[in-house]
């Protein structure tokens, strides 16, 4: 009983710490309508920077808070490749992600940096007397709550409205005087700031940073966003971010169950990819059914669709 409860808490912790990344993916993929693959590079970059800073003795909280700044620049680089050099959004993300692989190795100095003997944000809390069993859960709850609150408020500011409109109707918001190139650069930057922060926390949570830990981050983030949308219709900004968070938690439970069912950890990327394909295709299949029904309805009534 208590063992199962412990396992549930561990899964919740994972869901929450990755939810910060999922909110980032929500920002790029849903708010900005920009499929951003930078994420697979900016997530391990967050981990790499945190690992490096912590091993040289920077205070864990100070180090962790520096990470989003670097993440912002990684995302902004992708935004600039796309808007200034007119490279397609997918390729721009791939280019940054590829470049970051080398950068991350440089930052870490080697492919894997253990953090078991250095202080982390979690050991700081434990030293303050918070029991090790709840410190991660508590910290991640607070981080996710703050991220959600700040992003929700931000998306309702004048600037935030312009950002959302850039993803919704770019021509329109440009005709209202907004430089949509800057909006994309800032928006993708902000998304990757969150992704990198998530990476930094994950590294400290699992006790190491690894050069390969970014593989599949985008797909996991998208899976979370899609699951979230299925459960919570994103009628408002707040529902959208909440969906990403809940989706992340459910996704981690699905991963947990898959492991329990006997899948090897290395199979999980395949499982996730299949899950995302299923979710995406169910959407397009549903659309096709809707369309054919509409056509049939029109035929039955015997009228043309009016223009």
């Amino acid at each position, binding site marked *: 009983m208590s063992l199962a409860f412990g396992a549930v808490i561990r899964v919740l912790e994972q869901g929450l710490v990755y939810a910060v990344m999922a909110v980032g993916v929500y920002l790029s993929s849903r708010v900005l309508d920009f499929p951003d693959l930078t994420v697979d590079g900016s997530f391990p970059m967050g981990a790499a920077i945190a690992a490096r800073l912590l091993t040289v003795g920077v205070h864990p909280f100070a180090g962790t808070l520096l990470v989003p700044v670097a993440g912002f620049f990684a995302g902004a680089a992708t935004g600039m490749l796309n808007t200034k050099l007119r490279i397609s959004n997918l390729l721009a993300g791939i280019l940054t992600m590829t470049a970051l692989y080398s950068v991350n190795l440089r930052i870490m100095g080697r492919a894997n940096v253990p953090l078991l003997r250095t202080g982390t944000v979690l050991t700081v809390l434990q030293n303050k007397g918070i029991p090790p069993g709840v410190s991660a859960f508590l910290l991640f709850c607070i981080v996710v709550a703050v991220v959600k609150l700040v992003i929700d408020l*931000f998306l*309702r*500011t*004048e*600037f*935030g*409205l*312009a950002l*959302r*409109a850039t993803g*919704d*109707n770019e*021509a*329109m*918001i*440009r*005709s*209202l*005087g*907004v*430089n*949509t190139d800057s909006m994309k650069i800032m928006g993708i930057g902000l998304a990757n700031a969150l992704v990198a922060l998530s990476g930094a926390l994950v590294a400290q949570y699992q006790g190491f940073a690894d050069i390969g830990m970014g593989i599949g981050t985008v797909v996991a983030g998208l899976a979370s966003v899609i699951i979230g949308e299925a459960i919570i219709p994103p*009628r408002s900004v707040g529902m959208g971010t909440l969906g990403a968070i809940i989706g992340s938690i459910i996704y981690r439970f699905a991963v947990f169950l898959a492991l329990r069912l006997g899948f090897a950890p290395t199979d999980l990327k395949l499982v996730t990819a299949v899950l995302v394909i299923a979710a995406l295709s169910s959407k397009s299949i549903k659309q096709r059914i809707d369309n054919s029904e509409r056509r049939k309805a029109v035929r039955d009534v015997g009228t043309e669709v009016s*223009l």
Partner: protein
Amino acid sequence: MLELRSLCKKFQTSTGNGRMALNNVTLSLQPNDFVTIIGSNGAGKSTLLNVIAGVFPADSGQIVIDGEDVTSLPEHRRASLMGRVFQDPMQGTAGSMSIEENMAMAYKRGMRRGLSKGVSVKHRDFFREKLATLGLGLEDRLQEPVKLLSGGQRQALALLMATLSRPKLLLLDEHTAALDPRTAQEIQELTNEIAGRGNLAVLMVTHNLRLALSVGTRTIMMHEGEIVLDVSDPERSEMTVSDLLKRFHDARGEQLSDDRILLEV
């Protein structure tokens, strides 16, 4: 108010030579001019409005709005000077965002957008008041996403948004063409009313010749990238559609059939 000097715009075509979409267009507008623009498909009407708005640059020529040379300014830096409404009601609003959020974005046309609240309580009252003038009941639906509105409602909102911050110039590109006749008429009446408030120059593209003559103060006809006809009141108010077609014939030495100009009367 608006000065266009020898504007030229050529589009590349697959056959090589390119097509002159604007050929030496010169036009001068007074602050309260309401100009209707007619011309057959491909005459260059939309291109003219796009060049004025800065969607793409002109190849040569000069654009001066309200004393300011905007020829080399990008679209977003000209936005404070003009409002636009397009044929497609989807184009003028952000569907996933609420009515009040759309209004708030239009209210900030051309201004710096900071981190203050997008829709403040004070704005909300102002937007409600403005929406009430449409008589569509939208003032009670401020928080609804725009995508739930009908095409006509959405176009009325787009028109309101285009003029909310009182720009000096309004560009309308067949903005009633996608609507049913009754709604089209309502949007047209709203347009006339907004233009009638003064201090606003309007350029309105339409394929409806009778409408082109009956609203506004001046009518220009475009053909193959050129302005081939330019008539103002009071001369214009005497004209009929057939006079218009005859004048085109006299000017160009070509016959312009009704169907070439897509007569919608």
